[in-house]
């Protein structure tokens, strides 16, 4: 980085960091969504039909795949991988 990057550059690297944050958050979101079936009752009146369960689980899946594909597409490629924020930073 130069000592005083232009506003344009700063905005871009800011965007990139937020994009990284989204990529990081994605598995957490996925885990939470897939944890929802833990709340479904196993007996009694409110039991969930398997077809509904399939539709829910696969919808989450497809949604995550689409979001992940979009995010990784948006992430700039190339050698700049290392400077876009360290893990845990």
């Amino acid at each position, binding site marked *: 980085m130069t000592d005083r990057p232009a506003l344009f550059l700063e905005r871009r690297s800011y965007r990139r960091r937020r994009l*990284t944050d989204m*990529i*990081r958050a*994605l*598995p*957490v979101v*996925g*885990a939470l969504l*897939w*944890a929802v*079936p*833990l709340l*479904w009752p*196993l007996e009694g009146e409110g*039991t*969930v*039909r*398997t*077809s509904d*369960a*399939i539709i829910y*689980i*696969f919808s989450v*899946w*497809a949604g*995550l*795949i*689409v979001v*992940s*594909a979009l995010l*990784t597409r948006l*992430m700039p*490629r190339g050698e700049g*991988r*290392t400077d876009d924020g*360290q*893990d*845990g930073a």
Partner: protein
Amino acid sequence: MAPLNILIAVCLIYVAFLFVVAFAAERAAMRGRGGWLRSPVVYTLSLSIYCTAWTFYGAVGYAARSGLEYLTIYIGPSLVMFGWWWVLRRLVRIGRSQRITSIADMISSRYGKSNMLAVGVTVLAVIGTTPYIALQLQSVTLSFEVFSDVQAAGQTAPDHGATALWVAVGLSFFTILFGTRNLDVNERHHGVVMAIAVEAVVKLFALLAVGVFVVWGVAGGMSETLARIDASEIGTWQMAGGRWAGLIFLSAAAFLCLPRMFQVLVVENDNESHLRTASWAFPAYVMVMSLFVVPIAVMGLEILPEGANPDLFVLTLPLATGQEALAMLSFLGGFSSATSMVIVAAIALSTMVSNHIVMPIWLRATGGGAMVSGDVRHVVILSRRVSIAGVVGLGYLYFRFSGGGTALASIGLIAFAGVSQFLPVLIGGLFWRGATRVGAFCGLSVGFVIWVYALLLPSFGAGVILPADLMAEGPFGLGWLRPEAFFGIAGMDPLIHAILWSISLNTLAFFVGSLVSFPSPLERLQGAQFVNIFEHSSRPQSWAGGKAQAEDLMVMAQRIIGAREAQALFESEARKQGMSGVLPEPNARFLDVLERELAGSVGTATAHAMIGQITGGASVSVEDLMAVANETAQIMEHSSQLEAKSEELARTARQLRQANEKLTQISVQKDAFLSQISHELRTPMTSIRAFSEILREDGLGAGARDKYATIIHDEAIRLTRLLDDLLDLSVLENGQVSLREQSADLGTVLDHAIATALTGVSGPVIRIRRDRAAEAIRLHTDPGRLAQVFINLIGNAQKYCDAEAPVLTIEVRRAGGRVVVDFIDNGKGIATDAQGMVFEKFARVSSAHRAGGAGLGLAICREIMLRLGGSVSYLPGQGGAAFRVELPASGSMAAQ
């Protein structure tokens, strides 16, 4: 029709096709045209070895038994892939920068390149993978049997074990052919990766074809299928929460830890950016793979007769509906799943076994031998091949002795739980610098023991390996140690129970072991490199070695590339380094050259491993780096010593130069002294001789004679004084003077000196300014000699002070046990450059020979003061010439 024969023929054709694919891929890669081989798509497809025959056949059976639980096996890996930024990105970067060859290599490398740890991980991996290979053999065998059952009439049904044996032999052969065709850099196998990518497509296509056929061909459409699902015995959500969450965790952990997954994820990875694509494409792949599982299971339950093996619905459903071609495709899909898994698992395990067990033993056994030639390539490849055969053979044995009767999925999950024991050590190593080798040992041992005790052994059934009473009562009647109810917590699902306790106690042991132990420097260095992987450079580290190893390298190189060639190579490298002799310095550059050269003979991976063996590490020996650092430290110390020495030398030289200057000066002074003294002696002598000659002539008046006699007398006196001075100085300098010390008053001495100095002076007399009160000091000294000094100083002031109204100030004071007498006149003083010379003999400040002194006065003063225990010095910056006389005050006291 002879479907079994057709089946075998199709299998062989398929295998031949795979061989062609692999062969073509390797050729393309070798010719550098394999850009498309390294596409993210191929990488993603190669990850599909996660979906084994267990997935292909077993998932349907799993779904038929437990509803949607099978999805957990795919959801876990999907989450890992979605979270690639967290773990996989690190793993891949580390794998590439450290040239990791397997998960055992990874763990051993992180924990100080401990080969013991690598051996441990290898053994665990073999134990964890063997049931899994057995599973693949079983599935292929079962699928064969399906066909033979259908066509049982007129055919002899193949022997159960014989089929498995043939499959095992075939797979070993296949793997040896592909997996050890070449020993590529970083253990990459383009041919194998390409083949399993093709197989991935085949199995996906096969499962999709069966699924589409079942949904739209049998069930009658999507909504109809959903209705049938809801009406079936798995029609409602019946998932225990613990199993749902536990299995998702387990499959995610296994996805990272399975040796074969590590192989394709990290080792075979060509480009880190492939992970980006795989992060969504692989979840998409497994999602599609699992899409039709439930419909197939439901339709199988509905259509097929009671008691049909649900694990084989994928095959039996098309067969039952007369779709033999579809069944064949489905069979190929299952075959692909099984073969690709076995191939990659065998490669991964054989790499581990060969690198961490066989090669170290072989190198140790032969490393110091006198063997000059010998094909190491042969040894490496042989050890790989034997390892592959051994791994597959173990799988076969497991299959034979376990009877092949257990439900497929349960063996798979047990294997998952086994390899998941690597997870704490692996993840801890990536994120926690404090993780140590001891901790890793503790964690792995605890986890492994619990896994064996609580899951693996009970899985054979009570009374088979673990006695039934132990299962019920615990060992030695210790109820809290019951294999399936630790600490008395009964009623849990055995699998979840085992995972919970093994992983948590594993983590705890790992954590505590790390906390209480202290890592070796190498561990700490590797830890820092792993944890801060993105702060370090991304290129592979280069070699570093110590001098002692050059000979070992030579011995090794001779074995591999031949004695003459090796010697020529070493000599030319040594010449390049500017060294004489045969052995070059084993620096990083040389080791790189050597590695490339060896790679030409045995492949880069082996070359790397062999140099690693000799330089003392699996990849880069940081110990050597440290040795180098030590050496550097020594060099630095040495150079700082040199620096100190040269500084000392410079100091000595400076002193010598000063001494030399002084000597030269003294020599000049001596010459000057001699010429001066001859001049001084000659001048009065000349006038004495001249006037005495005149006196001898007659006819001189009495007045004239009187005058001349006076001149002669004066000159004689001057001469005598000069000689007296010289004698005085000589006596003083030789220390032969005897002092007449007595008590004297400073003021009195000054009175005497002033009176003497100013008596008979012609011209204006210098005014003396004194402070008599201050002069009232009683001294114990030689007053005559002291007066001589004062006379000299006052006389000089009288002679040389060039002020219009010359004034000499005499200041007396006591300073710290000394009496200080300053003589300050108001003249121009002495020029700075002459100040150092005034106390030298014959030194005259002005060239004017005004006073006619010989220039010995101050020299004598200095000597006298030295004898009296004091000093006389020039006092600069007083407005005129100023001399300071210092006397010791000891023995002196105030007069009053």
